[in-house]
C-alpha cells in the first residue's frame, strides 16, 4: 500500500517483510507477494505475546489512534489518520472481521495468541488475489496467524493487575507433508477493578486556584471470556488453503462514564454477554503460470444480550435486550499475469448481514452488499503502479412500523477508485504516492436503532491522498538508519461520528458533515545489530482534522473530537541472548471531546510509558520456556483517552509460556 510512506514503523525494515513470508512455502510466497508497496507498520511477535489483546500490542505504532475506554473488558477501537474507526478494515488471515450492527471492531476481542504479525496499511494493501472488500476500506489492519511448522504444544498462563488470570493452550500438529492443524483454547477472567483520580482545578477571579481531587475505584469492569479455535492449513499443487473455526463466549460489565452520582447508587450495572462463532476459509491456487484464483468464505453468528440491570442500578434506563446478528460472505478473486510486467486482477464479493432483536418495532434489518473490483499492477522494477476500482452496492430491507417490509432507501452504491505509485530511485529508498476514495455504509445501529429513531444518515465518503518517502542506509559494524516522512490530505464528507452516550453499547451518531484532514508522519529508526540487537524509533504525527460542516457554527474550523494535533511515540528495544526488552512511550497532545474547541471540552494531553520484558530459555529436546512481563503506565499517569473513562494507572501483566 501506499502507505508505505507513511509510516512510522516501529521496527520495520525491509527485512521484516521478507521475514514475514519466509514462514511459508516458497510457492505460496509467490501468491502472496506484495507487489507494490510494503505495510506502513508491522508489529512483530515479541510485542504481541505478553499482552492480553491486540490493542495493547498496537499501542504506539503508526499513525493510528487507539480509542480505549479503559480496563481489560473496555472497548478498544482503532482510528487511522482521523478517518474514523469505521473506515479501518480489520482482516483476520485476509478475511474481514466486521460488525454490521455498529461498524466498530473491538480490538480487545482479539487474542494475540498464535498471531505472527499485525500489519497496518494506510490506504490499502496491494497484494495479489485480494478480495474486493480489501479494496474497500480506507485503511486496514491485518492480523496474520502463523502456519504451524512442527509438532508443538504451547501452554501459557498470563496474569497480573485487575485480578487478571488467563490460561491458554495451543496444540499444533503436522498432519503429513501437506496439512497442519492448530487447536487452541484460551480463558480469561479479570475483575477489572482499578483506582483512579478525578480532579479539576479552576482559577478564580481572585487568582486563587480551587478544586477537588478524589480517588475512586472503577467497578463493574469485570470480564470473563473463553475462546476456542481450530485451524487447518493445507498445501495443494500451486496453492494453499486454510479453514478456521472459532467460538467466543464473553460476559463483561461496562463500568460506564464517570459522572457525579451519590454513592448510594452505583455508576453502572450494565452487562453484556456475547456468544459468537464463525467459520472461515481461504483457498488460493495458481491454475497456470498466467492465472491464479482465490476463494474465500465466512459465516458468522453473534448473539448478544445487553442489560442495564435496573434492579441493581436504579438510575439506569431499563434495557434488557437480546440481539442476534448473522452474516455470510463469499469472495472470488482472480489474478491474470501475462508474463509481462502487467498483472490484472478482478474480485467479486457478496456479503449478507441481518440483525434481529427482541425490541418492539425493531426494524430487523438485513443487508445484501455486493462488491466488485478490478485493476492492474504494472511492475517495471524501479517503478511500480497499481490502479483499482471497486464498486459497492448495498440493499437494505427492514421492517417498518406498520409491519411489512420496506425497501425505502434500499440501495446505496458507490465507486471507489484507487491509485498507488511507487518509485525506487535508489537502493533502499522508496517514494510512494496514493490516492483513494472509499465509502462506508451506515451501520444498522446508525440507521435503525428503535429508541434513537430512524436516523437517515447519509453514507460516509473518504477521499485520501498521500505521498511519502522511506529511506534507509546501512553502515559498517551493524548500524542502520531509517527515515520516513509522509504527508497526507484526506477529506471526509457526511462523516458519521460515533460518540458514547451513557454507555458504550449505544452511541450518539451524527453526520458531522465534512472534515478536512491534513497531516504528516515522520519517523526515524536507528538500529544496531552486533552481539546483541538494539533499536530506537521515534515517530511523530501531525494531524489537523477540521470540521468543515457548517460555516458560521461554533464547531466550524475546529479540530474534530479526540484527534490530537500532535502525537508521537518513542520506542527502544533491546534483544540479547533470548532476552527482549522494549520500552514504548506514547505521547498524545491536547484533544477535545467535542468539535467545539473550548476549554470545557479539552481532554488533557498524556504520556505513558510501557515496558515489555521477555526472556526465552531453550530447554533440551527442543523445548522452551518463556517468561514475559508487561509493565504498563510505568509512571502511573492518570489520563483519559475518552472523556469520562479514566484509564488505569501502573499495571503489570505477566506471562509464563512453555513450549514442547
Amino acid at each position, binding site marked *: 500500500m501506499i502507505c508505505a510512506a507513511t509510516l512510522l514503523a516501529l521496527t520495520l525494515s525491509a527485512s521484516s517483510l521478507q521475514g514475514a513470508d519466509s514462514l511459508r512455502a516458497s510457492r505460496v510466497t509467490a501468491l502472496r507477494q506484495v507487489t507494490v508497496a510494503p505495510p506502513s507498520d508491522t508489529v512483530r511477535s515479541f510485542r504481541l505475546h505478553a499482552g492480553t489483546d491486540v490493542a495493547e500490542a498496537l499501542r504506539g505504532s503508526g499513525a493510528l489512534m487507539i480509542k480505549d475506554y479503559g480496563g481489560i473488558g473496555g472497548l478498544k477501537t482503532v482510528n487511522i489518520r482521523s478517518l474514523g474507526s469505521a473506515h479501518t478494515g480489520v482482516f483476520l488471515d485476509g478475511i474481514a472481521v466486521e460488525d454490521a450492527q455498529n461498524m466498530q471492531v473491538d480490538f480487545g476481542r482479539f487474542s494475540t495468541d498464535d498471531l505472527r504479525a499485525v500489519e497496518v496499511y494506510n490506504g490499502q494493501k496491494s497484494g495479489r488475489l485480494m478480495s474486493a472488500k480489501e479494496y474497500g476500506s480506507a485503511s486496514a489492519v491485518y492480523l496474520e496467524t502463523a502456519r504451524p511448522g512442527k509438532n508443538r504444544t504451547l501452554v501459557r498462563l498470563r496474569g497480573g493487575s485487575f485480578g487478571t488470570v488467563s490460561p491458554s493452550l495451543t496444540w499444533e500438529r503436522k498432519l503429513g507433508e501437506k496439512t497442519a492443524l492448530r487447536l487452541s483454547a484460551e480463558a480469561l477472567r479479570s475483575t477489572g477493578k482499578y483506582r483512579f483520580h478525578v480532579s479539576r482545578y479552576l482559577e*478564580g477571579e481572585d487568582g486563587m486556584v480551587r478544586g477537588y481531587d478524589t480517588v475512586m475505584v472503577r467497578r463493574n469492569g469485570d470480564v470473563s471470556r473463553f475462546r476456542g479455535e481450530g485451524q487447518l492449513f493445507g498445501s495443494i499443487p500451486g496453492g494453499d488453503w486454510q479453514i478456521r473455526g472459532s467460538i467466543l463466549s464473553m460476559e463483561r460489565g461496562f463500568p460506564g*462514564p464517570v*459522572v457525579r*452520582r451519590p454513592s448510594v447508587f452505583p455508576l453502572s450495572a450494565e452487562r453484556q454477554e456475547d456468544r459468537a462463532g464463525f467459520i472461515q476459509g481461504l483457498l488460493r491456487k495458481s491454475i497456470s503460470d498466467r492465472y491464479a484464483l482465490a476463494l474465500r468464505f465466512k459465516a458468522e453468528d453473534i448473539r448478544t444480550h445487553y442489560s442495564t440491570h*435496573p434492579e441493581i442500578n*436504579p438510575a439506569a434506563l431499563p434495557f434488557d435486550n437480546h440481539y442476534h446478528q448473522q452474516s455470510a460472505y463469499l469472495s472470488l478473486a482472480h489474478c491474470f499475469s501475462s508474463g509481462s510486467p502487467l498483472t490484472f486482477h478482478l474480485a467479486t464479493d457478496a456479503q449478507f448481514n441481518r440483525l434481529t432483536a427482541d425490541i*418492539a418495532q425493531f426494524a430487523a434489518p438485513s443487508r445484501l452488499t455486493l462488491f466488485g473490483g478490478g485493476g492492474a499492477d504494472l511492475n517495471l522494477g524501479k517503478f511500480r503502479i497499481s490502479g483499482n476500482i471497486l464498486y459497492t452496492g448495498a440493499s437494505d430491507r427492514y421492517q417498518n412500523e406498520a409491519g411489512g417490509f420496506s425497501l425505502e432507501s434500499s440501495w446505496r452504491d458507490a465507486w471507489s477508485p484507487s491509485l498507488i505509485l511507487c518509485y525506487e530511485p535508489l537502493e533502499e529508498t522508496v517514494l510512494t504516492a496514493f490516492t483513494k476514495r472509499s465509502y462506508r455504509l451506515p451501520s444498522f445501529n446508525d440507521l435503525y436503532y428503535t429508541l434513537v429513531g430512524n436516523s437517515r444518515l447519509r453514507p460516509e465518503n473518504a477521499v485520501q491522498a498521500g505521498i511519502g518517502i522511506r529511506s534507509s542506509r546501512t553502515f559498517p559494524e551493524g548500524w542502520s538508519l531509517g527515515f520516513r516522512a509522509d504527508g497526507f490530505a484526506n477529506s471526509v464528507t457526511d462523516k458519521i461520528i460515533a460518540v458514547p452516550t*451513557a*454507555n458504550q453499547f449505544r452511541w450518539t451518531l451524527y453526520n458531522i458533515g465534512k472534515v478536512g484532514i491534513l497531516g504528516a508522519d515522520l519517523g526515524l529508526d536507528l538500529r544496531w545489530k552486533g552481539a546483541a540487537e538494539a533499536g530506537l524509533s521515534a515517530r511523530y504525527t501531525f494531524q489537523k482534522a477540521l470540521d468543515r460542516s457548517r460555516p458560521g457554527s461554533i464547531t466550524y474550523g475546529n479540530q474534530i473530537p479526540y484527534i490530537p494535533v500532535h502525537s508521537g511515540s518513542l520506542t527502544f528495544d533491546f534483544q540479547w541472548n533470548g532476552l527482549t526488552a522494549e520500552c514504548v512511550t506514547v505521547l498524545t497532545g491536547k484533544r477535545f471531546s467535542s468539535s467545539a474547541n473550548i476549554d470545557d471540552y479539552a481532554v488533557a494531553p498524556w504520556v505513558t510509558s510501557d515496558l515489555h520484558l521477555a526472556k526465552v530459555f531453550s530447554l533440551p529436546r527442543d523445548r522452551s520456556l518463556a517468561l514475559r512481563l508487561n509493565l504498563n503506565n510505568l509512571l502511573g499517569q492518570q489520563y483519559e483517552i475518552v472523556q469520562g473513562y479514566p484509564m488505569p494507572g501502573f499495571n503489570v501483566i505477566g506471562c509464563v509460556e512453555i513450549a514442547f
Partner: protein
Amino acid sequence: MNWKTLLVFSGILVCAATGCRKDPIVDPLPVASEDEDLAGESVTVGETGFFTKLFVLNEGKMGTNNATLDFFRFSNGKYVRNAFDKMNPSQPLGLGDVGNDVKLCDGKIWAVMNNSGLVEVIDAFNERHIATIPVRTPRNIAFDGSYAYVTSYAGAFVNYLADYSVGEHLICKGRVYKINRTTYSVIDSVDVGYQPEGIACHDGRIYVANSGGLSYAITYQYESTVSVIDAGSFQEIGSVEVAPNLKDVFADPDGNIYVTSFGDYFMNHSGIYSFKPGDTKAKRISTEGIGCNMTCATLSQRPGNPVAAGSEVFVIGTDDEWNWDPAAEKHYYLYSVSGGNKVTRYPAFRFDGDIPYGICAAAEGNGTLKYLFVGDAVDYINPGAVSCYAAQEKFTRLWSTTSGVDPGHFCLY
C-alpha cells in the same frame, strides 16, 4: 494546590453555602453576592426593576457529566456561564450529568439532575450549594406547601411477558418522591405509570404526566394518562386519559390543567390538551395542525403583580414534526394557551436558530409578555445558544449568546 488548602477551602465553601436568603426579589440588592465577580459576557445593557437573574440549566450530553448552570443578570446585562462550578469549585464532579428540570422556590434553585440521580438545591443569590438529595432517575419537580415532589423513572419492578420476546422483561413503574423542603430528605413516595415526566400541583392534587417512553420498547404502547395524587394522603386517587406519550403538565391558578403529548411519532401527532380537576378525559386544544412537541413554559411573573404566574402557557411548535431530514428547513410557531382552550398566536415571532429546546416567558407587571427567552440546542451535543426576544417590539431578538450544551430549562429569580 495541595490537599490541605483544598480542605480549608472546602470548609469555607460549606460554611458559606449554608446561608439561605428568604426573599431575594428586592431592588437594589442589599448585599453584594460573590457571583458579581464572575466573569461574564456582556450581552445587552442592564435593566433594573425586573427580575434579578435568569437561570439556565444546560442539560449537557448524557454520560459526559457536563450539565451546567448559567445565569443572565438583568442589572448589568451580563451572561455568566457555568456559574455553579465556578462558585463551588470543590464540589467533586461539578453539577452532574443531565440536568432535566430547574425550578425556583423560596430563593433556592432546585436542579433535577437526571443521570446523576440527585436533586441539587442551590442558593439563587450566589449559586452556592445548599443540599444534595439522592433521588433515583429524577425527571421533574413541583412544589406545594412545604414539600417538593419529584417524578422519577425508578419505582417498583414489574415482570412483563412480551409475546415477541425472550422470557420476561423487568420494567420499572414510575414514582413520585415527596421531599421535605426544610430537611431536604425524601419522606414518602408513591408509584405512578411508566416513565413519568412533568408534574404540577393544584389545590391539594398532584398531576403527573406518564410517558411510557422507555417501556414502549417492551410493552409496545405509550402511557396516555395523567396520574392524580392526593397531596394529603399521598395516594394515587385517579387518572385522566389524555393522549400517548405525555410530557409537560401545567396548572393555572383557575384550575385548568394543561398537558402536552409528544405523540407516537407515526400515527398520533403531538398536541396540547387541557382538563379540569374531576375530569376523566382531557380535550385537545385546537392549534390547527401545529404540533407542540418542541417546548413549552408557563408565564413567569414577579410576586405581587396582579396577573398570577402560570396563567398562560407558551408553546413553540412546528407543523412538520415528522420530517426527520436533518437538511429540511423547519418553521417554528409561537402560540399561547389560556383559560382552558383559548389560543393566541404570535405570527410576528420568527425563531433565529436551529432547534428551540426550551423557552421561558417573562411577564410585565400587567401580565403581558415582555421577554421570551429561547434555548437553542443547535446540534444537541455542542454548546447551544440562549436568545432573548422582546415581545413588545414584534419579537425583535435583543440578544443571543452561547450557552452550555442543550439549554433546555429556565427559571427567573
